């Protein structure tokens, strides 16, 4: 009985393709997002609002801080506050952001951070949040190698590696080589 390697190759390619479909989308979409970090923040939408305050000092209590927040509609979002830099500033933690006030000038900033749906989650995973995820990501990377190598042997006839395939394969390798020759060496 001969080993039917083509049959096995197709089966592995098919099942790996199904199983790692989600991982491929996660890494591809977050990869594009990370390529353009200078243009946008894929994880968060950050909004800032400049404010001018009065009658705030380093001796105010929680009640006064809540009253101050009420002016800007943030009273319900209060978490905690403290006075960093030896009482030079007031920093209030609110749900989804912070309020920072320079107590000497009264000028302040309300900064609110909202997660960008979907991209935020994908980006989180892309940065390897824990070693167990890294294990799974390594398995995925290994599977990609199997998919790439196995994939080139699946087509037969005119589209096989020996015919049309070799030219496309060579073109795909030549492009990174050209970049390396120009920019790396």
């Amino acid at each position: 009985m001969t080993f039917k390697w083509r049959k096995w190759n197709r089966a592995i390619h098919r099942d790996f393709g199904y199983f790692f479909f989600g991982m491929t989308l996660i890494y591809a979409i977050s990869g594009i997002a990370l390529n353009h970090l200078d243009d946008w923040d894929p994880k968060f939408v950050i909004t800032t609002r400049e404010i001018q305050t009065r009658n705030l000092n380093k001796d105010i209590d929680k009640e006064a801080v809540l009253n101050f927040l009420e002016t800007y509609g943030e009273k319900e979002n209060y978490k905690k506050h403290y006075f960093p830099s030896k009482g030079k500033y007031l920093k209030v933690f609110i749900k989804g952001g912070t309020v920072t006030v320079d107590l000497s000038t009264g000028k302040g900033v309300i900064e609110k951070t909202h997660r960008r749906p979907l991209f935020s989650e994908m980006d989180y995973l892309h940065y390897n949040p824990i070693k167990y995820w890294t294990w799974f990501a390594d398995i995925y990377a290994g599977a990609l190698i199997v998919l790439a190598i196995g994939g080139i042997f699946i087509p037969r006839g005119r589209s096989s590696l020996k015919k049309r395939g070799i030219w496309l394969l060579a073109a795909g390798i030549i492009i990174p080589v050209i970049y390396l020759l120009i920019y790396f060496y």
Partner: protein
Amino acid sequence: MKKFLLFSVSLFILTSVFNISLATASSKGGKKIELSNFNKKAADFVGKTIRLQGIVDHVCEHDGKKMFLVDESSDARVKIVPNENMAAFTQDLIGETVEVTGIVKEFRLDEDYLIEMEEKVKSESNEESEIHMGDGEHKDKKEEHNTKDKMKQINNLRQKLKDSGNDHLSFYSVEATSFKIIK
């Protein structure tokens, strides 16, 4: 074959989740140190487990692999990094009071390190110049400022090192093994 695959995947997920919950839930052991005293006492606890309570002031936006704890009574600010069994910190923690259990780590900065930093900043600056010159454009002013700021920081550290009279400056942080939110 199918059963084996299902069993392996389930086992993998279960062990991961179990380990993660262990890392965030348990916080026993280690001497409790006041955050305001951390920098004074840290040298005696390098490599040892401590407990530290403070407000989460900042969580790294990129990967959540570091956060800073502050307290209301002092200007102390302590860097916390998760150990390899812990998940990255999330932005939701900002403003929460947490008790972190972890091992005190020391980072020693000496003249060799400063020279390395200096070389790196210079080479980055040169590379940027080459790229911009190649495009026929002027070097971006923001980048020029960045380089100047970095060089200023290095010089400040060099001065601190000189003033300390030692051959190195010590910076302490905590590698967290677990943490819990204090309500």
